[in-house]
């Protein structure tokens, strides 16, 4: 259903009861009007009849006066005749005067010469009989008089002498005298007025009076008169015209007057009323429907345009608000639509942004995986090749020595890679605790640089160091990690032959580590983003995209900052790490033991053969005497033979955990002053805590480098 049909329906539903009501009221009004009309017509009928009666009574009065003449007392007919003739001359509507005995035998007739025989008129019609019966005047029916041969009627009065009816005096009256009376009533032109006698014969008629005189009235009128003395009916005139007819019979004459009012006149009142009502209603309905149509257009047009706007919105097209909204609700709808369109647009944009971010993250992840695979496979390839060299070469030869060097550096490199990988997650979720100690930043950086130089990683670059001692409260391993990652980054992005400058110095309250390369520099837009996880420079040739992210997080963990600067692409980059500086340890600081540290007797318990051999070599190189076992039982046996100064214990032993072994060694004979160093794969604070509780003096996380081992031993009492 459209809005238009609803509105039209609404209009009709409202109008219909009104129409019914109006129809009913109209019907009653029309009925009343018709009744009024009828009453009026009947009153008029009565008036005409009264006028006719008056006319007749005038004749009766004149006859009554004649009847009292004294000549009749003595039956002096000659005198009476003479007086009657004079009276007749004064009555233009009269045609004759006659006198008859009560039995009807005429004794005088002015139209017949005196002495001539006269007919009996007693049985001419019922008027004689009526007069005899009532003793009152009577009017005869219409008849063609035997003398005058024209339609006339007689008015008869009794002549009473000595209380006896002696004569009946009759006046012949022209029928057209009655016609004049009707004419005088001034009926409307198309109305028919008619006087009929008791026989139903027309006495007078206002239409074609001469032609209709003496004719029988219409059958419908005669039937009605037979039924009652007065009334109203619908019938036809003698000409056949449909008419409404009010009629009434006179008491005086027994005649009746009837009017033929054209049915069209009467019904016209009704049909005009109904037509008026009908036209009014039809007009109202038409106007209402037209208004409904207009209003529906006014509402529907903007709604349709809003609907197409909403569809356009669905397709993602721009939405133009339809202009000229006159209806408040529609305006509200339009505003709501515009608002939704804006919201959808924003959401679309957000989705697009998120999609792009997801795609970028996915790309970064793919690149990361590719780089990870490359970064891990390269050292593995080197290790495999070096292992092969060891297998096929003279162990004491130069090739084997080089291969061992490769293995040593690559294992370390890989260990650092894996540590970075594992750390980056832990650092970013804040799960890394710092084992802080007061340390010289320059010394840590120098150590890393020396190690790298030793492995040949700076062979293709000019490295310059500019180190000034500045102290920080930091986790040594983490600081080394920071330095190593910055150096790694510099080496990776600096073409062969160019320089890398590393400096450490104090700047106010900060210790500043700066690594400046002469590499490809940074794009302006790279800025801070290079510190994001898995973010690789546009010219990324390698690296996992975690080094700088790890640096940033580790520096921040130490309460410091890191920044990258570049004068543009191809002009090198400078990475600056600032850490809170602390006071240098004064005279109370124990001097670093000179290399090599004091020689000690060391007991090494380590189940991994490679690690054990490496550590044996490192300890021997440091001038210590070494005995080693591959499990706890072997270690306890060696300690029982001769108590060592230092025990170096791997926590993850096959037959007993390192903590338990530490407790047993502590209680072994001669081992009261034993110093113990733990070697574990776990660097969590709780692991360190546990090691301390078990009696370890130092806790070393794998991989243990000779340098770290040297430092750890030097710190032991």
């Amino acid at each position: 259903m459209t809005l238009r049909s609803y509105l039209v329906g609404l209009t009709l539903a409202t109008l219909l009861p009104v129409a019914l009501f109006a129809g009913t009221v109209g019907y009653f009004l029309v009925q009343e009007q018709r009744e009024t009309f009828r009453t009026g017509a009947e009153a008029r009928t009565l008036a005409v009849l009264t006028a006719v009666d008056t006319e007749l009574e005038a004749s009766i009065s004149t006859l009554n006066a004649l009847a009292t003449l004294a000549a009749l007392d003595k039956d002096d007919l000659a005198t009476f005749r003479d007086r009657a003739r004079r009276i007749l001359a004064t009555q233009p509507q009269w045609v004759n005067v006659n006198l008859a005995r009560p039995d009807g035998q005429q004794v005088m007739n002015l139209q017949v010469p005196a002495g001539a025989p006269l007919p009996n008129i007693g049985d001419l019609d019922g008027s004689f009989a009526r007069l005899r019966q009532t003793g009152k005047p009577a009017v005869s029916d219409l008849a063609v008089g035997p003398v005058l041969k024209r339609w006339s009627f007689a008015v008869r009065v009794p002549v009473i002498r000595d209380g006896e009816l002696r004569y009946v005096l009759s006046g012949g009256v022209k029928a057209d005298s009655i016609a004049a009376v009707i004419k005088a009533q001034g009926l409307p032109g198309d109305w028919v007025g008619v006087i009929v006698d008791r026989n139903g014969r027309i006495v007078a008629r206002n239409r074609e009076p001469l032609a209709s005189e003496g004719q029988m009235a219409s059958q419908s009128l005669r039937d009605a008169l037979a039924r009652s003395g007065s009334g109203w009916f619908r019938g036809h005139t003698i000409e056949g015209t449909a008419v409404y007819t009010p009629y009434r019979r006179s008491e005086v004459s027994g005649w009746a007057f009837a009017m033929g009012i054209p049915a069209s006149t009467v019904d016209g009142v009704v049909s005009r009323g109904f037509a008026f009502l009908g036209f009014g209603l039809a007009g109202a309905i038409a106007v209402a429907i037209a208004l409904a149509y207009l209003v529906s257009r006014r509402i529907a047009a903007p709604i349709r345009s809003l609907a197409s706007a909403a569809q356009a919105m669905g397709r993602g097209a721009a939405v133009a608000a339809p202009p000229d909204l006159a209806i408040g609700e529609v305006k509200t709808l339009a505003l709501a639509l515009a608002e939704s369109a804006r919201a959808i647009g924003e959401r679309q944009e957000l989705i697009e942004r998120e999609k792009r971010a997801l795609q970028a993250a996915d790309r970064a992840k793919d690149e990361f995986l590719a780089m990870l695979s490359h970064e891990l496979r390269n050292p593995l390839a080197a290790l495999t090749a070096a292992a092969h060299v060891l297998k096929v070469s003279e162990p004491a030869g130069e090739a084997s020595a080089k291969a061992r060097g490769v293995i040593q550096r690559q294992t370390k490199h890989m260990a650092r890679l894996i540590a970075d990988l594992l750390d980056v997650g832990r650092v970013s979720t804040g799960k890394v605790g710092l084992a802080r100690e007061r340390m010289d930043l320059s010394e840590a950086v120098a150590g890393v640089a020396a190690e790298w130089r030793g492995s040949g990683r700076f062979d293709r670059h000019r490295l310059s160091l500019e180190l000034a001692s500045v102290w920080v409260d930091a986790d040594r391993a983490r600081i080394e990690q920071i330095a190593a990652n910055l150096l790694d980054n510099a080496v990776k992005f600096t073409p062969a032959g160019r320089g890398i400058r590393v400096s450490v110095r104090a700047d106010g309250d900060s210790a500043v580590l700066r690594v400046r390369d002469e590499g490809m520099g940074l794009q302006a837009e790279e800025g801070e983003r290079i510190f994001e996880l898995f973010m690789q420079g546009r010219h990324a040739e390698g690296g996992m995209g975690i080094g700088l992210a790890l640096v940033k997080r580790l520096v921040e963990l130490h309460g410091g900052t890191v920044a990258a600067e570049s004068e543009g692409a191809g002009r090198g980059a400078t990475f600056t790490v600032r850490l809170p500086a602390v006071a240098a340890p004064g005279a109370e600081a124990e001097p670093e033991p000179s290399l090599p540290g004091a020689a000690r007797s060391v007991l090494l318990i380590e189940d991994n053969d490679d690690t054990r051999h490496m550590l044996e070599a490192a300890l021997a190189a440091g001038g210590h005497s070494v005995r080693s076992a591959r499990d706890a039982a072997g270690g306890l046996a060696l300690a029982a033979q001769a108590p060592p100064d230092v025990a170096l214990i791997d926590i993850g032993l096959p037959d007993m955990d390192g903590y338990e072994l530490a407790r047993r060694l502590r209680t072994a004979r001669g081992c009261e002053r034993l110093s113990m160093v733990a070697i574990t794969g776990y660097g969590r604070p709780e692991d360190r805590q546990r090691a301390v509780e078990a009696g370890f003096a130092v806790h070393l996380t794998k991989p243990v480098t000779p340098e770290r081992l040297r430092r750890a031993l030097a710190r032991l009492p």
Partner: protein
Amino acid sequence: MSAGRRILLAEDDADLRLALKLSLEAAGYAVATAANAQEALALQRREPAEVLVTDIFMPEGDGFEAMDAFRREFPSTRIVVVSGGGQRGKGDYLAAARLAGVDATLQKPFEIEVLLAMLRRL
């Protein structure tokens, strides 16, 4: 190809370069090394090798550059490509190299015996 012939090794990682050189020398080959494509090409021009063993990812002239240059200038030199690149993200570089028409490809890490067998077959 038999032992005693000359091999040119292009690899940017110093330790891997050294370890491969030692391995190949132990197998009896004469080995020249380069850290990138340009160096490899320069060496080849000075003293041509029969086989080029090259990495793909190298700064300043990668393996594909080396392949192109050698194909143009030294069409008879056999080429073996090694790579540690994965097969995700940036695509399968070894497959790309095979399509480019190299004689053999090897995914890092690899057993030296496999490389040696490959060289013997060439």
